[in-house]
């Protein structure tokens, strides 16, 4: 007969075992293997015959740092994160404020409409947007032409391709953060606003001194999640531009995919994946640090 505490521990581990086993084998093991792989010259020959595998230290990382294409991919990814991330968060917050406004009637309908792009399949809507961006027949250029704007070759012009991809990505996912912001807004006690109104605070002052500070934790969460997600941009350039024109939409993950699964340079691609991971980790730490300093 075993005691109740031991019984609880055994039962706990038993319920946990399938999930832990799967996560260990299909997540943690590959993460460690990827680190090991990044120090080898694993390529298409090694794929056929493991005898060909050699340990090459930091050569992959050195090669990456010397590769112009990697720096281009890094720059493009940074562009996507730094411009797309804040834009997406700002639009999410704006939409949440509007949907949640006291003045709004039918907010459930607006919420559903604004959220609908989130549940769509990225590949499918990327295909749709490719036609919307068509320089001759696309709806977007036609709409702009009504205001006298000359046609723009959205996906063909090296300067417009990344903004076009950002616009589509923001359209696709701002609704997700909007929902989280709405939840955050609803957690702010209404008496705070009533007191502020009695003191004569206008809408902007209420937003600045009540909404924003109390939304702080939600804001941090949304900013972090959006940033981590935007660092991993892949399907948009894969479907819409294949990384072009002139590599202006080549992202780090797209580069990793091409090197790893098209050319089978798996050691090199693993190194690229780890650099991305390191960057995400560093950016996350930085945001948490800034936030901590800001609140103290």
């Amino acid at each position: 007969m075993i005691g109740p505490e031991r019984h609880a521990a055994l039962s706990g581990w038993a319920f946990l075992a399938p999930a832990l086993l799967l996560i260990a084998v299909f997540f943690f093991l590959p993460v460690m293997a990827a680190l090991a792989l990044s120090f080898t010259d694993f390529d298409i020959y090694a794929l056929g015959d493991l005898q060909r595998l050699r340990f090459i230290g930091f050569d992959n990382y050195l090669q990456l740092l010397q590769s112009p294409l990697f720096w281009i991919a890094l720059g493009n990814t940074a562009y996507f994160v730094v411009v797309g991330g804040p834009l997406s968060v700002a639009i999410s917050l704006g939409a949440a404020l509007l949907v949640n406004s006291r003045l709004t009637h039918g907010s459930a309908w607006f919420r559903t409409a604004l959220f609908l792009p989130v549940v769509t399949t990225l590949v499918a809507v990327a295909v749709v947007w490719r036609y919307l961006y068509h320089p001759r027949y696309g709806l977007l250029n036609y709409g702009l032409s009504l205001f006298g704007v000359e046609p723009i070759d959205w996906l063909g012009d090296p300067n417009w391709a990344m903004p076009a991809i950002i616009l589509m990505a923001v359209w696709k996912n701002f609704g997700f953060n909007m929902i989280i912001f709405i939840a955050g807004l609803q957690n702010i006690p209404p008496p705070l606003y009533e007191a502020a109104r009695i003191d004569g605070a206008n809408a902007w002052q209420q937003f600045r001194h009540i909404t924003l500070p109390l939304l702080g934790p939600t804001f941090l969460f949304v900013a972090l999640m959006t940033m981590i997600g935007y660092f991993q941009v892949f399907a948009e350039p894969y479907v819409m531009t294949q990384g072009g024109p002139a590599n202006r939409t080549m992202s780090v993950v797209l580069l990793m995919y091409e090197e790893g699964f098209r050319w089978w340079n798996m050691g090199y691609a693993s190194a690229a994946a780890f650099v991305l991971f390191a960057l995400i980790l560093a950016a996350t730490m930085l945001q948490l640090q800034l936030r901590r300093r800001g609140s103290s």
Partner: protein
Amino acid sequence: MSRRSYSWLPALLVHGLLAAGAMLALAPLAWMLAASLMPPGEANSYPPRLWPSAITFEHYTALFTRLDLARYLFNSTLLAIAVTVISLLINSMAGYAFAKFRFRGRDRLFQGLLAALVIPAQVTMLPLFLLLKQFGLINTYGGVIIPGMASIFGIFLIRQYLLAIPDSLLDAARMDGAGEFRIYWSLIVPLCRPILVTLAIFTFLGVWNDFMWPLIVLTDSSMYTLPVALANLSGEHVQDTELMMAGSVLTVLPVMLLFVILQKYYIAGIMLGGMKG
């Protein structure tokens, strides 16, 4: 005095902005649907048509007769259902263990799993491919299903939900002499119903919409899911705008319907995940 007489102005502004936003959000989807019903070539005309001159379903028919859409639809549905059912079982058991059993190292283990959420999935993809190749799982349904059978986020969601349920309920069942699995199956699972529905929608949508991993692991076109097939077709059939729009509609429609029907659960799930995170 003048303040009062213009009090309708902010309300008008708010509704105007919301209507404009909703229109911008829905316009690409509306055009996709309209273009999929246009006669061939009509989507490529100037000025662009917003509505078909005559409604035709020929592109939908072509997807099923000339192309193998039924096959992709089947693959997508099968994979999404399989991953959803299996992962729901495994994640709910693990979430239950983290929420309701005391054992040494439990909290540290849970924190460790949560911390691992910052590791991007792409880091695992290259070794995972090699691992599945060893098991002979490349280009099989198993190659998509098995790595998706447990998820840290799913475990987290279930645990958060169960923490709010009092232990006294479980203790009463134990007093009655019910076995641990029986308690899980006939007490915990029914209690968790709302969060299980939420997680089921998340998982189904996630698998249905996923692109990168199926693209890597499903190498033969007969195994393609809808997004992989669509990305592939959009290269070959770039000129057939109406055909591609019909394909996009069929890819997007099932998940949009699922969302619209079950949106209460979906929205609640985002809020739970967002607030406690």
